């Protein structure tokens, strides 16, 4: 067997061009197949891992996916705003153990600013690492405090004690009317989490309010002059759901002419909720006392008469997202399977067409004592080796590719895709491809077997 392995290997090396092309074809198709799988798994793990421990996300009545993506992942806009009194009422509900309010809508140099409470640092769980931990400093306490996500600090070169002046709404993008009057001081920097929190700044709700009051004063107390929500400029957001207490004075059409089409990959603050409603939230996170109560609480919140609210269970809503994406993934998987078939057919053609030239070689092998079964094994080993090499290269390409693209993907989408060794499903794919490669090898092997029996020691060329 070792002899045959060595023979097969040398034989392949003797035909480097066809061998390499065959390996490349198999490798690329494996890369495609595994890449889809890795991206799928990585994306799911990234999303699921971002929000652990939160039982419900509550926001204004609207699309569940929009609420979750907007409030937790910073993708698109949250569904609207929730009056602060409504939030306060719910915090007293006996089934609720803790809440974390979120006021979204401001940005600082492309990073989103979250108005929240110190409770966020206590209750936010991500992946297996658990709670957020600080690389430096402590949680926000006063209206002047700001805590930075790791990437914010790294990208902007901010350090403890630095001053941050936050812009509001689209003004930040347009570079107009910053809230000069209410600067924040960096009191804490978070450790890296590889979640969207790395790309956020955290201030207190009072801080947000103080900032807006100062901003309004600086703008001459003319709220109508400030361009409000500009859904047309928001990539990926569903601007249709803007229900609730949006005041008629919001000049939706006043999207600034300075930015159309610019579509920077930065976080664009979605709504201007504080302009006319000083005490309002975008959403709040809820932890229930017992998991059993989550469903009942969700129903209760959704049926709340005093204010139209939507409560979502993160896992369930993400499940809906995966089901939607499932069709796309299925399509990509089919493409991957087809390229595998094309790759293997390429190998079949290469091996089969080499046989005519190798009849002499087979006769020599027979003369020195090779049994016909060895001829079969030799060709099957050759196809097996080509497939194996292709698979190995494909796995390496997939993992290397993700390692290289990881940073770009995270910067573009905020989704952190971990480089993973192939899982059970991937190994199953690889196993199937290897088996198919060996089966494909049986075709030329069978022909070589037949012709070496017919040829004996004198192949008729």
């Amino acid at each position, binding site marked *: 067997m070792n*002899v045959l392995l060595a*023979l097969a290997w*040398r*034989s392949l*090396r*003797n035909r480097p061009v066809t061998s390499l092309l065959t390996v490349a074809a198999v490798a690329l198709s494996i890369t495609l197949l595994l890449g889809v799988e890795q991206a799928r798994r990585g994306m799911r793990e990234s999303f699921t891992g971002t929000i652990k421990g939160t039982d419900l996300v509550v926001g204004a009545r609207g699309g569940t996916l929009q609420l979750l993506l907007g409030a937790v992942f910073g993708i698109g806009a949250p569904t609207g705003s929730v009056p602060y009194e409504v939030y306060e009422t719910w915090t007293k509900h006996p089934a609720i153990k803790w809440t974390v309010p979120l006021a979204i809508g401001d940005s600082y140099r492309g990073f989103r600013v979250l108005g929240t409470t110190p409770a966020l640092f206590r209750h936010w769980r991500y992946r297996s690492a658990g709670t957020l931990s600080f690389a430096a400093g402590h949680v926000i306490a006063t209206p002047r405090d700001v805590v930075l996500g790791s990437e914010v600090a790294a990208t902007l070169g901010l350090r403890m004690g630095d001053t941050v002046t936050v812009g509001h709404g689209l003004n930040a993008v347009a570079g107009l009317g910053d809230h000069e009057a209410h600067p924040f001081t960096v009191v804490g920097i978070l450790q890296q989490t590889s979640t969207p929190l790395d790309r956020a700044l955290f201030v207190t709700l009072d801080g947000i309010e103080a900032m807006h009051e100062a901003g309004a004063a600086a703008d001459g107390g003319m709220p109508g002059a400030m361009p409000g929500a500009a859904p047309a400029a928001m990539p990926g957001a569903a601007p249709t759901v803007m229900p609730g207490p949006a005041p008629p004075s919001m000049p939706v059409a006043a999207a600034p002419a300075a930015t159309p089409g610019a579509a920077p990959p930065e976080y664009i603050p979605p709504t201007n909720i504080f302009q006319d409603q000083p005490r309002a939230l975008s959403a709040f996170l809820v932890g229930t006392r017992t998991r059993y109560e989550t469903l009942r609480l969700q129903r209760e919140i959704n049926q709340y008469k005093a204010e139209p609210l939507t409560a979502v269970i993160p896992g369930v809503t993400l499940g809906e997202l995966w089901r939607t994406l499932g069709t796309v993934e299925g399509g990509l998987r089919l493409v991957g399977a087809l390229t595998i078939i094309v790759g293997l057919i390429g190998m079949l053609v290469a091996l089969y067409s080499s046989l005519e030239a190798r009849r*002499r*070689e087979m*006769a*020599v*092998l*027979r*003369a*020195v*004592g*090779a*049994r*016909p*079964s*060895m001829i079969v094994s030799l060709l099957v080993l050759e196809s097996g080796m080509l497939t194996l090499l292709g698979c190995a290269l494909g796995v390496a390409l997939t993992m290397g590719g993700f390692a290289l693209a990881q940073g770009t993907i995270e910067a573009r989408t905020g989704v952190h895709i971990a480089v993973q060794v192939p899982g059970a499903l991937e190994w199953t794919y690889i196993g199937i491809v290897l088996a198919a490669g060996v089966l494909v090898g049986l075709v030329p092997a069978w022909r070589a077997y037949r012709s070496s029996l017919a040829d*004996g*020691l*004198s192949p008729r060329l």
Partner: protein
Amino acid sequence: MTAAGRPGAAIAIDGLQFSYGSGPRVLDIPSLVIDRGSRVFLHGPSGCGKTTLLGLLAGVLHATNGSVRVLDRDMNAMSGGQRDAFRAEHIGYVFQQFNLIPYLSAYDNIALPCRLDAGRRARLGAVSIDAAIRDVAAQLDITALLHHSATALSVGQQQRVAAARALLASPELVICDEPTSSLDTDRRDAFLALLARSVAQANATLLFVSHDKSLGARFDVQLSLPSLNRATRLDAA
């Protein structure tokens, strides 16, 4: 006295008939006996069935009728696998040309029979394959070529490497199918001299086939296939 009644013969053929599939009869040999240790020259024109006969002796082809005994073994009674193992262990075979696996070195080509077959390897006893290869390479004057790629060798060198492979581990029977027809006269004479010496040293029976009658004088026995083979005579008639 029939051929089968000659125990100890290297080759004993009795009433052999052979055709390729349903094709015309290529061989019809009533009797042929070759003694052990003899050096036999078998000649005949191209297409008269020489290679076919060698295929039958080597156990690659199967006789349609009659008996073929090689080294006292009945080839017809053996299964395909047994014939392959028998050939690997007891027979060295040299082709007219293209004897070598192109992607192996001369050394690895020579080593092939011993690596592919445990029986052939066992013939070496305590001697290592490497020592045996160096020994046979020295006899055939190819020591310097051992680590050359097969494709880098001249035709004459290739034939010597092939002979070394056939002689490795001293098989009882060495079959050469026109090994010199692609060599020029000088190379041919040198090759035949080396072959004769090595076969003698190995105590092997040599069956050497050629269409070139002029080589016959160097051998103990000269045979003409057309005169042994009734199929040719019928054809000619």
